[in-house]
């Protein structure tokens, strides 16, 4: 049983195990809301795809499968390194914790850079969201709708990646100030849970957007 005479135990908890379990449960509940939040966009995707299946096949050709696949690999790697940073914290290895967090951050930045290139390429072609869409390469009246959904899904996902980077930088700073150890690493655990869900959302986005035939 974790023996704590430390300041990490809040006064309303009986012991640190109760606090750790409560924090994890809280984060899982929050992730439920994230799944339903993104889920709304998946719903819009599914409904429009069921209405206009031919549109989705045509429009998907404008998405770069290679870049999408690299991004998928990058995020999976980042999930691994995030889990490894928690593993390091559990083993009381402060240095490794920081290193793995840093690698995760780098992966996330690579992801965003690739996204940047994807987006700018599309803008160059006139593929903008909604009413600003001027691309003529897809012969379908609902083409703007596909890309609106594409931008909403990948854009919202990208925002969540950026937030994740912010959280991880905060973790690195705190870890360097020796705030974490094998008896208290709760913030790393719960940021890890968040990051894995960001990865999972991309795991579904990739085939649904990039790999339509």
């Amino acid at each position: 049983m974790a023996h704590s005479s430390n300041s990490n135990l809040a006064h309303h908890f009986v012991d640190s195990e109760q606090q750790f379990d409560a924090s994890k449960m809280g984060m899982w509940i929050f992730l439920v809301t994230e799944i339903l939040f993104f889920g709304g966009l998946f719903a819009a995707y599914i409904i429009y795809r069921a209405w206009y299946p031919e549109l989705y096949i045509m429009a998907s050709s404008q998405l770069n499968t290679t870049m999408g696949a690299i991004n998928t690999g990058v995020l999976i790697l980042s999930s691994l390194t995030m889990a490894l940073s928690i593993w390091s914290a559990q083993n009381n290895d402060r240095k490794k914790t920081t290193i793995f967090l840093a690698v995760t951050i780098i992966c996330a930045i690579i992801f965003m850079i690739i996204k940047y290139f994807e987006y700018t390429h599309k803008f160059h072609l006139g593929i903008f969201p909604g009413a600003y869409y001027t691309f003529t390469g897809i012969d379908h009246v609902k083409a703007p709708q596909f890309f609106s959904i594409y931008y909403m899904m990948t854009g919202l996902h990208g925002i969540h990646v950026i937030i994740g980077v912010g959280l991880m930088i905060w973790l690195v700073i705190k870890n360097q100030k020796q705030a974490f150890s094998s008896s208290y690493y709760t913030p790393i655990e719960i940021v890890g849970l968040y990051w894995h869900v960001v990865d999972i959302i991309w795991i579904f986005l990739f085939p649904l957007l990039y790999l339509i035939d």
Partner: protein
Amino acid sequence: MSGHHHLSLKVLLGTALALGVLTVLTVSVAMIHIPSPFNIVVAIAIAAVKAYLVVMYFMNLRNDSKFNLLSFGFSILFLLIFVGITMLDTMFRVEVIPGF
């Protein structure tokens, strides 16, 4: 119930490897032409397996409280309810004025 189940390095690396393999599979399968709607079913199925691995091993739900697993399950269930019942409308509308 323990909150501090230690992650195992072997399991983490193994999971990452499996995810990599499945990603390669995802892309390869997309190159083969599978008739609709089965192409979607296959793609989602592979993604679901990947998500399962991330949830069970990276997020350690395998060794965690059943309540957290239940919560996650409910989120998927209610998402499916939302999409499914909405499609009872969107897929079954009758053209009131043909060609409009």
